[in-house]
């Protein structure tokens, strides 16, 4: 409840996929209300890093603490953490056999045991917030990519999370729809949500991020506020990456 209480604490975290070491002794602390953008070349371990936070991946060494809870094999702890952490995926992962409204109420009703009418009201409220209340009765397949991703954001928000994770949320979208999703994310940031976003959208990073974390080959190479990161990156690797990403 302290303003700068730590939301996520990672200490010397390592992860192996077989013989390949995806994360090498990573340290990370994200405080409540902070917005972190994680970037880097593909294969650098950025997705793996945030998936450790809601235990979609398991760490092999080190400690991962979310909201004061040490993540290990205890299922009850994992479920408790997952309820407080919302995730938005690159490929949306909406449930195709449920309507938009049902997609949103599934979590609150079945993971938080909320009464259905309350969940419905909450869901409609959030659909208004992402500006697509009229799509409530439709099936995801009938929505555009941008609309689907906004539904996915609303679905995560329906769980009233304390932390939102975004895994390349706009990478699978056509260019003209990226804007509408980023707008929702910016609003969310301004409302004070703690966010960790893996993305290539540097404009968004500049506007919203408190810190930019640059990763390469499983390590955090640089971690700096956007002003410093963009104008004078500390390391050669970051410089090369920036020139590539911002070049076109």
């Amino acid at each position, binding site marked *: 409840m302290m303003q700068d209480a730590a939301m996520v604490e990672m200490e010397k975290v390592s992860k192996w996929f077989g013989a390949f070491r995806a994360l090498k002794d990573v340290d990370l602390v994200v405080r409540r209300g902070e917005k972190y953008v994680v970037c880097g070349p593909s294969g650098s371990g950025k997705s793996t890093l945030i998936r450790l936070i809601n235990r979609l991946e398991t760490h092999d060494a080190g400690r991962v603490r979310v909201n004061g809870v040490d993540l290990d094999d*205890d*299922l*009850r702890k994992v479920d408790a953490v997952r309820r407080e952490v919302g995730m938005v995926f690159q490929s949306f992962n909406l449930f195709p056999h449920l309507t938009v409204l049902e997609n949103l109420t599934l979590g609150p009703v079945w993971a938080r045991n909320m009464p259905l009418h309350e969940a419905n009201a909450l869901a409609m409220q959030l659909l208004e917030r992402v500006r697509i209340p009229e799509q409530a009765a439709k099936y995801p397949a009938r929505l555009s990519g941008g609309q689907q991703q906004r539904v996915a954001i609303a679905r995560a928000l329906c769980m009233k999370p304390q932390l939102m994770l975004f895994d390349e949320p706009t990478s699978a979208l056509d260019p003209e729809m990226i804007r509408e999703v980023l707008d929702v994310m910016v609003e969310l940031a301004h409302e004070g949500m703690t966010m960790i976003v893996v993305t290539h959208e540097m404009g968004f990073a500049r506007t919203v991020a408190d810190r930019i974390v640059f990763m390469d080959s499983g390590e955090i190479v640089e971690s700096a506020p956007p002003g410093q990161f963009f104008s004078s990156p500390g390391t050669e690797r970051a410089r090369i990456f920036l020139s590539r990403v911002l070049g076109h």
Partner: protein
Amino acid sequence: MKLRSSDPRLRALVYQVSAAAATLLLGWFLISNTIENLAERNIASGFAFLDREAGFAIGETTFVPYSASGTYLEALTVGIANTLRVALIGIVAATVLGSLIGLARLSRNWLLAKLASGYVEFIRNVPLLVQLFFFYALIAEHTPVPREAIEFLPGWYLSNRGMFFPVPVFHAAHAWALAALAAGIATAVAFARWAARRRALTGGSLPVAEIALALVLGPPALTFIAMGTPLEFDVPRLSGFNFSGGVALTPEFTALTGGLILYTAAFIAEIVRAGILSIPRGQIEAACALGLRQRRILRFVILPQALRVIVPPLTNQYLNLTKNSSLAVAIGYPDLVSVANTTINQTGQAVEGVAIIMAVYLTITLTISVVMNWYNARMALRGQ
């Protein structure tokens, strides 16, 4: 380390232990009841009955000599041999017929395509047993007695006691010709390998297929001619009420095998058709654009990809045909299930009988599966 109910390892352990316990409990329950019931009905246990005299004759045998004074074990062996005979002939013939029908369905000729489609649709929607009964009735009721048998080819007779055809009498020259054939095949394979290596090194091409064919067919033909072309036929002759000599295919065998072949061929036709259709049109266009000729396109582009899609379901059909041959018991063909059924009826030892049937079939089906999986794996390695 504390064990808590939410620990997934503990949960997994609990689930598995309860499942194992439940299964063992059920097994114990069934077995103890069985032992009790068997004792009550005075039925023996164990496989000692296999050495007793069977006391029943078997209508037809395959390479295995048998008489009514043979043991149950011998009788069951005959049954297995009969099953394998039907299965092997059925698999080969059904594959050939099925492939042809599958290709016919894709033909540009409207009549051919429609005929093939009609055939497939009809066969697939009627139970196999009905079809077997139909064929048996057709042969039993609508073919003449041997006295008035139909001779539809010189020496080939069709009657309600079966189909008879002449077979060459075995002569030393045949053995030599077969040896020459084996040698020819080995040489052809070696030649093909050598030609492929040569092509890889120098790029020169030879008419491999034609030369290989000559290598395979030439030596046996030459040997045969050189030894004076001894070809004598054992022609079936009417003696009394039936034919003797030549090879006899009983109505039971004909109905069962013919029915199985026609039935399975319909399913294989669909598999072949799906396999060929699965190849994207773009592949063939790309191959044509490269300037490859038809035969090469077939061999390098179409066949490998089609086979990859075809082989798994084809294996399934082979297994189905083998299992379906057990319907012989309804037709009167003495396959394994028929013989085992008679054995069970005579000895009362149902448990052992059914166990034997299942064990044999499991062995056959697992063998076929293993062979086809090996073939599949080899294709996958080669291809990608």
